[in-house]
């Protein structure tokens, strides 16, 4: 499999003092599902957010499909079209109903026709199991439903890679599964995914590789089976004791 995302020596400091990333190297292959775990403040969200340049690195480089994200002259908007992102707090647009949330960017950014965008939006709503919510307003939906709409909205741009930033952390326990099911389906279809999450069920079901980060560095990485049963590092073992 070819390398799709290539992160080299990523360094990021906040406010001149807090070192969020201290030289991270990571490459993700096409179709690979990589789960990033680690204690809060370990830099995992920063790493994810620098892939579509919501955070700018201080140094280091990131390539997506051979195109530089970190280069000053990069066509970042074009890159973002191909990189879908799902946030912890959903971030649906509250002034637009469900279908408009999904079709806005395809029509405004990709210049698709309204009918084509709506037809595609309906397909995506069916895919995330929310066909009946087409004209609902975000505030009328449960957290799990909002997050599924957010996934459909990201997929409407036909992204080649999807970033998930703690997609289930803001959800009540009974809603987590509906979101993870959608994510698992997506993984099975061969979507390249970079996921920050502590959902070990999803890790076992869908992840190809698990990355453990601490203090801005990658401490250990392994396929799920070896990662959970025989972690190499002490630090990883201690962390796993906390979350398992």
């Amino acid at each position, binding site marked *: 499999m070819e390398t799709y995302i290539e992160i080299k020596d990523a360094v990021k400091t906040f406010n001149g003092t807090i070192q969020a990333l201290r030289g991270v190297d990571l490459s993700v292959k096409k179709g690979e599902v990589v789960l990033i775990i680690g204690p809060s403040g370990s830099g995992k969200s920063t790493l994810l957010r620098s892939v579509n340049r919501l955070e700018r690195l201080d140094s280091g480089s990131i390539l997506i499909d051979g195109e530089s994200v970190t280069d000053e002259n990069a066509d970042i908007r074009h890159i973002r079209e191909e990189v879908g992102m799902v946030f912890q707090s959903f971030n649906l647009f509250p*002034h637009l109903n469900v279908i408009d949330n999904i079709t*806005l960017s395809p029509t405004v*950014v990709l210049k698709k026709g309204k009918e084509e965008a709506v037809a595609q939006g309906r397909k995506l709503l069916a895919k995330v199991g929310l066909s009946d919510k087409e004209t609902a307003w975000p505030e009328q939906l449960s957290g799990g439903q909002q997050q599924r709409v957010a996934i459909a909205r990201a997929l409407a741009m036909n992204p080649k890679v999807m970033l998930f930033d703690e997609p289930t952390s803001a959800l009540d326990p009974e809603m987590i599964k509906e979101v993870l099911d959608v994510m698992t389906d997506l993984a099975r279809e061969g979507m390249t995914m970079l996921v920050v999450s502590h959902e070990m069920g999803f890790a076992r079901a869908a992840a190809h590789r698990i990355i453990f980060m601490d203090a801005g560095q990658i401490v250990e990485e392994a396929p799920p089976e070896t990662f959970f049963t025989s972690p190499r590092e002490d630090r990883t073992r201690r962390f796993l004791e906390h979350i398992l």
Partner: protein
Amino acid sequence: MTKGSPLSGRDPKDSERTTINVTDGTLIPSRDEGGLLSAWNISFFGAVGLLVALPLISPDPYLRILSFVPDGLIATFSVTLSSIFFALIIGLFAGLGRVSQNKAINRVSTIYVEIIRGIPLLVQLFYIYYALGPLLRLQGPPAAILAMSICYGAYMAEIFRAGIQAIPKGQMEAALALGMSRATAMRRIIIPQTVRIILPPIGNEFIALLKDSSLVSILAVSDLLRRGREYASTSFRYFESYTVIALIYLVMTLFFSRLVAMMEEKLRHRGNVH
């Protein structure tokens, strides 16, 4: 002028301290403030009652005054409405400038707001009409509208800025992540949500502007106050003339306050959005 807009409480720095929020809005009643509501009733219907009763009881001079001032009412409203219109446009752009990432634009907008808010409106009116008169060669009404638009534009800019900053950061991030430019995200995502929040403070500014428009009577604008003064100075009925003028202003501001309060309540009851 509105001293603390309802948005000021959203500033995280403010919320840590104990603050009191005194605004022009003390005039604005809401349903849960029964005392204020009845105060509004007494003031409003009292003023309307006086405006009806006084001409009936003594037509001279009250009926004469009332038939003399409507011209001024038209001038007052045309100055107020034109000024609020241009102030909104100036305020939108200056407000966007205040949140712009472009340092030069940001600085220019901030300096504009600081300068304008630091100079009394009356001084600004004099400045545009008299000091810059030879240069601009404006008649009274356009000079008045220009000065009031520039002045209120600065206050509107702060309302737009506060409104934009009140929208959660995640909204802009989600729009950017979907490939939108910052400008598109502003237009399609941020501003539409901002409008809902800033309508009540803009309503307050409208009322404040309506009252402040009486200052333009200093320039050659025959607004409500100036018409009253004209009548008073020819008839020497100062008490009666200014009583009528004061009552008319009171009825107008109380009426619009109620309107703003109703609008605010409607927005609140419709929940967040749509």
